[in-house]
C-alpha cells in the first residue's frame, strides 16, 4: 500500500472504516484530488465558478446592532449571500468538478437541512451530472422548500425511512448506494466527516471561508479577531472558517454544537461538548454519541444540519489538542437568536449559525472582536420556526 498524502488521521481520529469494496474508490479519489488541487486548469475552472457563478468572495459585514447588543464588535462572514444560500456550494462544486475529472457521471449526496442536497443538485445541473440525494423522512418534512428546489434542479430525492429518519440514516443510505454503484458514481459527502480522504478534501474546499475572512478583517480592523465562532454539526463550515486561523495562536476558535433540549436531557447533537468515548460512524473514528455497546444514539436538534450524533475527526483532534473549544446552545436559544438577528440586522440566518450567534451574544467573554461564520440563510427554516414560535 502506498503512503497516504492527504491527512488520514487527525491525532487518533479519522481513518477509513469502510467495506473493502470502497477502498479502491477512496484511493482513486485521493489520487484525483492530489492531482486536481495542483492542476492550474482545474483550479482556474473552480475559481471561475466560485467567483462568477457562486458569488465569491462573500462580504465580511460589520453587524453594528448585534455588536451593540453584545457589547463588542461582531463581524459576520456572509455565507448566506452565496448562490444556493449556504457554504455547502463550495464543496459541491469542487467535488462535482472532480467527478467530471474522474469520469463518473452519477453523483450521490445526502442531506440534512437540505442545503448540501440543493448545492449538489445545483452543481449537477450545471455540469450535466445525474444526481441522487438521500434525505431522512423527518428532514423532508421540516425542510420542504429545499426538497422542491432539488427536484426542480433535476435531482432524485430518495426518502430514508430508517431509524430517526434524519441525517445519520441519510448518510448511511448514501454510502450503501455508493458501495453498490461505485463504478460509475461519486459520493459527495456534505460535511467534514466520513472516511479519509473526505475530511481533508472538504476542508480544502471550505477553507476559502476563513482565508477570505482573515484578509478582510485585517483590511478592516488592522488586526485579527479575538474569536472565530462557527456552528458544528459535522463541522464543514467551522473547519473552513478555522483552518487558516489555526496557526494564529491568539485567535480563539469556538465551535458551537446543538444542545437540543439540553445536554443533560440526552436529547442533543453535541458529541464534542458532551465528551464520551470515541467511536466509528460513517467510516471514521471521532467523537460520537453512543451507548456502552457502541450503538449510535439518535441526535436531536431543531436544526436539521446539526442533528447528527457524530463530528468531523479534525474537530475531535482540535478539541483534544486544546486548539479549539466546543460549546453547545439549545433549541430555544437558537430560536431566540434567529429572531433577534432578523430584527436587529434584517438578516434571517439559518437555524444552524443562529446557534453561533446566540453564543456570541449571550456568553460573557473578554473578546472585543468576534468573527462569526454566518454559514447560511434561514429561508428554508421559516415555516418550521414560525410554527415553533406559535405564529
Amino acid at each position, binding site marked *: *500500500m502506498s503512503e497516504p498524502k492527504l491527512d488520514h488521521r487527525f491525532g487518533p481520529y479519522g*481513518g*477509513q*472504516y*469502510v*467495506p*473493502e*469494496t*470502497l*477502498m*479502491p*474508490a477512496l484511493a482513486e479519489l485521493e489520487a484525483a484530488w492530489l492531482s486536481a488541487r495542483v492542476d492550474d486548469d482545474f483550479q482556474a475552472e473552480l475559481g471561475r465558478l466560485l467567483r462568477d457563478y457562486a458569488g465569491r468572495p462573500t462580504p465580511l459585514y460589520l453587524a453594528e446592532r448585534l455588536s451593540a447588543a453584545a457589547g463588542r464588535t461582531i463581524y459576520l462572514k456572509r455565507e448566506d449571500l452565496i448562490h444556493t444560500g449556504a457554504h455547502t456550494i463550495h464543496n459541491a462544486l469542487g467535488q462535482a468538478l472532480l467527478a467530471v475529472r474522474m469520469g463518473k457521471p452519477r453523483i450521490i449526496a445526502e442531506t440534512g437541512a437540505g442545503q448540501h442536497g440543493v448545492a449538489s443538485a445545483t452543481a449537477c445541473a450545471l455540469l450535466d451530472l445525474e444526481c441522487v440525494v438521500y434525505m431522512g423522512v423527518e428532514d423532508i418534512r421540516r425542510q420542504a422548500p429545499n426538497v422542491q428546489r432539488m427536484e426542480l434542479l433535476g435531482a432524485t430525492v430518495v426518502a430514508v425511512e*430508517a*431509524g430517526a429518519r434524519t441525517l*445519520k440514516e441519510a448518510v*448511511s443510505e448514501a*454510502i*450503501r448506494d455508493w*458501495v*453498490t*454503484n*461505485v*463504478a460509475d458514481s461519486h459520493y459527495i459527502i456534505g460535511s467534514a466527516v466520513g472516511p479519509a480522504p473526505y475530511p481533508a478534501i472538504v476542508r480544502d474546499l471550505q477553507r476559502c471561508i476563513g482565508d477570505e475572512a482573515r484578509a478582510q478583517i485585517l483590511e478592516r480592523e488592522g488586526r485579527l479577531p479575538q474569536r472565530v465562532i462557527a456552528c458544528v454539526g459535522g463541522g464543514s463550515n467551522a473547519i473552513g472558517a478555522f483552518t487558516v486561523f489555526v496557526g494564529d495562536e491568539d485567535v480563539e476558535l469556538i465551535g458551537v454544537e446543538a444542545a437540543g433540549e439540553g445536554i443533560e436531557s440526552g436529547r442533543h447533537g453535541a458529541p464534542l461538548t458532551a465528551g464520551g*468515548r*470515541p*467511536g*466509528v*460512524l*460513517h*467510516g471514521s*473514528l471521532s467523537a460520537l454519541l*453512543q451507548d*456502552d*455497546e*457502541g*450503538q*449510535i444514539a439518535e441526535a436531536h436538534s431543531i436544526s436539521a444540519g446539526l442533528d447528527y450524533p457524530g463530528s468531523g475527526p479534525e474537530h475531535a483532534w482540535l478539541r483534544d489538542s486544546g486548539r479549539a473549544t466546543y460549546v453547545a446552545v439549545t433549541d430555544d436559544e437558537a430560536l431566540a437568536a434567529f429572531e433577534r438577528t432578523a430584527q436587529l440586522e434584517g438578516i434571517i440566518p439559518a437555524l444552524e449559525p443562529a446557534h453561533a450567534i446566540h453564543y456570541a451574544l449571550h456568553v460573557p467573554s473578554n473578546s472585543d472582536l468576534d468573527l462569526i461564520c454566518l454559514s447560511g440563510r434561514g429561508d428554508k427554516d421559516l415555516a418550521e420556526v414560525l410554527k415553533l414560535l406559535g405564529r
Partner: protein
Amino acid sequence: MSGAERIAAAFSDRHGRAALMPYLMGGFPDIKTSLGIGNAYVDGGADLIELGVPLSDPLADGPVIQSAGSAALAAGATLDLVLGVARELSSCLPIILMCYSNAILARGTDRFVDELADAGVSGLIVPDLPLEEAPATSTSCAAAGVAFVGLAAPTSTDQRLAAIGAATQGFLYTVAVAGTTGERGDDSDYGEVIGRVRSHTSAPVALGFGISTPEQASAAAGAGADGVIIGSRLVREAAEADQPSAACKALVEQFAQALR
C-alpha cells in the same frame, strides 16, 4: 485446537463439496429464538455458522439484515447475549462472529477478542475494518487463537488482493458483487471473482453477498468456491415464517442438498 484450525477442518475433507455457512442474526427475533434457529442450521446440514452482532448503523448491510438488526436491538439483544448464543452453538460447529468495528472499540479490542475466545468463537469478520485499519484487531485475534478473517471484494486491486489473501486466517470471505448484503436474482458470474481471489491466497475461498437460491449456491460451488455464505434469504425466512426454526431448517437442508 485454535479457531483457524477448527475452521480449516470444517473446510477440508469435504470430497470436493463446498462448505455451507448460513448467517444468523444474533438476537433476532429474540435471543431464545435465534439460538433455536442456529440449532436448526446445525440440524439442517450447516458446516459453519456466521453469527451477526446487531448494530444500529450497519453500513455493509441491505434492508433485510438492517431491519433484523434493529428488531434484535429493540428486543434487547446485547453483545453478551449474542456471545451466549455463540457459546451454545460452538459446541456443534465453528462459529464465525460478524460484527462492526464500533462494537469492538466499545468493549476494548483485547477484552472483546478474549471474550470471543472464551465463548468458543473460531473466527471474526469485521466488514468495516479493511486491511489498513485491522492490525490491532488481528494482532489481538492471533494472541487469543481466533481467526481474523479478511474480506475481498470484486473491486479490490490485485495489489490489495495479494495483501488481503496473505493476511487472512481460516478462510477468505469473498464478496460476490459490489453492494450490500441482500438477495439478488441475477446470474452473477461467480467464476471471475473466485478465480481472481484464489490466485492470491492459499486459504479456502467462501463466497457471500447476494446468494439467495440453492441454484445460485450450486453455481458458486461449481465456479470453485470452497464455501458458500447464505445471509439475507435465511434472515428473511426467520422474519416471515410462523415457525422460524422449522422453516430455516428446511431451507438450510435445500442449500445443503444443492451443494452435495
